[in-house]
């Protein structure tokens, strides 16, 4: 049995699934769109698109404020979505789920509020070589402000974290470890259980940037015993502008608010304000109500298919693509970790990734080229960037075949 037939058995309803995503019908230069830029943002199913419309046609009103009918309905839907997110990551309490604008804002919130409370001069924050700029820059800002230091876990040539080096970095100055669960540039799935265990053995909390994890595999914050976990709605088949910060109650309670405003207060006088309880302490102002409700719709959709099944199918796509691409002369994979999510990053010998992206675009194939917001990582590999194809469960082996043919054509045109 070849790989394609195995895959067909895994997701027999692939055609039905594809019909859920109207944008997949797009034509580019007269060819069907092949969307392999899922790590940047995923497409949205009708179930999410309809939920947006439903919100504005039936529920629109401000939340947590009005006694009137609509406000209560909107608030109910809003809080139901918080429960869905909590159960999606198996948080112990709903109020440990804070809605933010995205992964970036979630990380900035923790850098600001955790940093303010717990980080002082000469302390250390640990990140890894694989981080997205959004898990680098907020810590640089914090470290500069506090005169603290940022340390970086090195990687091997396959793009895997060097755990011995990490272990050696864990001294009493370390206040937080913040690493990604899955690398957006290379697809490496990091040994997060081990990272958390090692850090916890020294009483150091851990934050996971799960922006590239929650859409690919089941994530259980209690089982991981992780202290903070962050992700974005738009990479999870939901809307843009909405993100999640999960934090253990004990940390969130000790952290000062991030922004001041409405919603986050209990009482305000000009002399003194007392803050609202969790989660509202960290949700100042009118939230992205439609975003919150529709991230719930996205989670419902994913749950219906099942993350275990998604994980298996995407893994088959990854193996199939890697195998087919390997046949191309002069291809060099960047990121060959043993444990990978459905991301293939590569370069063609003596060809700039940008050029490959331009040619693939002419074939209607959407990939990402460049540094993927991980410039320090590209510097480690001494490359300007990579061509990155990232797969979702609505992608198929047929699309991969067309993509591989496109890469071959690009290689012959550009070489």
């Amino acid at each position, binding site marked *: 049995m070849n790989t394609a037939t195995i895959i067909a058995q895994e997701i027999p309803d692939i055609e039905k699934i594809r019909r859920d995503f109207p944008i997949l019908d797009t034509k580019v*230069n007269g060819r069907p769109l092949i969307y392999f830029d899922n790590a940047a943002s995923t497409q949205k199913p009708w179930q999410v698109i309809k939920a947006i419309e439903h919100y504005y046609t039936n529920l629109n009103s401000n939340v947590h404020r009005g006694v009137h009918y609509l406000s209560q309905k909107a608030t109910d839907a809003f809080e139901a979505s918080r429960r869905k997110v909590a159960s999606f990551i198996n948080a112990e309490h709903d109020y440990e789920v804070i809605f933010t604008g995205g992964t970036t804002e979630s990380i900035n919130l923790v850098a600001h509020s955790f940093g303010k409370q717990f980080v002082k001069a000469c302390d250390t924050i640990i990140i890894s070589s694989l981080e997205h700029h959004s898990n680098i820059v907020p810590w640089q800002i914090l470290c500069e402000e506090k005169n603290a230091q940022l340390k970086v876990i090195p990687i091997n040539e396959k793009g895997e974290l060097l755990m011995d080096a990490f272990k050696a970095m864990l001294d009493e100055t370390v206040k937080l470890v913040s690493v990604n669960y899955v690398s957006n540039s290379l697809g490496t799935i990091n040994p997060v259980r081990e990272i958390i265990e090692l850090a916890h053995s020294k009483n150091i909390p851990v934050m996971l940037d799960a922006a590239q994890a929650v859409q690919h595999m089941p994530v259980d914050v209690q089982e991981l015993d992780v202290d903070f976990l962050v992700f974005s709605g738009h990479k999870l088949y939901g809307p843009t502008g909405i993100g999640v910060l999960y934090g253990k109650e004990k940390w969130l309670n000790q952290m000062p608010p991030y922004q001041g405003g409405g919603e986050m207060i209990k009482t305000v006088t000009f002399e003194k304000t007392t803050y609202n309880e969790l989660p509202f302490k960290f949700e100042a102002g009118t939230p992205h109500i439609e975003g919150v409700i529709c991230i719930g719709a996205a989670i419902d959709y994913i749950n219906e298919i099942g993350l275990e099944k998604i994980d298996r199918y995407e893994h088959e796509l990854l193996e199939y693509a890697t195998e087919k691409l390997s046949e191309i002369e002069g291809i060099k994979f960047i990121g060959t970790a043993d444990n990978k999510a459905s991301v293939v990053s590569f370069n063609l010998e003596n*060809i*700039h*990734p*940008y*050029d490959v992206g*331009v*040619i693939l675009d*002419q074939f209607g194939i959407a990939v990402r*080229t*460049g*540094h993927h917001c991980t410039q320090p990582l590209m510097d480690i590999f001494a490359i*300007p*960037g990579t061509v990155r194809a990232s797969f979702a469960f609505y992608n198929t082996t047929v699309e991969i075949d067309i993509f591989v043919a496109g890469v071959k054509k690009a290689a012959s*045109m*550009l070489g």
Partner: protein
Amino acid sequence: MTINEIQDELIEEFELFGDWMEKYENVIQMGKELPVIDVQYKKEENLIKGCQAKVWLHADYKDGKVLFMADSDAIITKGLVSMVIRVLSNHAPEEIVAADLYFVDRVGLREHLSMTRSNGLLSMIKQMKMYAMAIQSKVKAN
């Protein structure tokens, strides 16, 4: 030839191509043919930072005309750069400042001027015009 005559010539050349592949093959070819820029000019000050492809631009002013030399690490960008140089180089500063580069659109490569492409082409054109403008005001001041 004037700037517009060169642009029209380029547009005519591109009309010969049947499909996008031939068009891009031509752009790539022009990239390969662009005279190699002297390494001394590939320095940090000459680097125009596009997000993805690097472009180096060097300019000289001789006998009332501005001469441009450029390079890029991406071959398609280099081809586009070579077209822009063919159009703008070896003209008086005031002609360069006033030039309306309509050829990019007309040869069907407009998408390369968009911000999201971040290939440095747009910044390069801006830089060329700024350079010409600087010379223009220097000449006037003298």
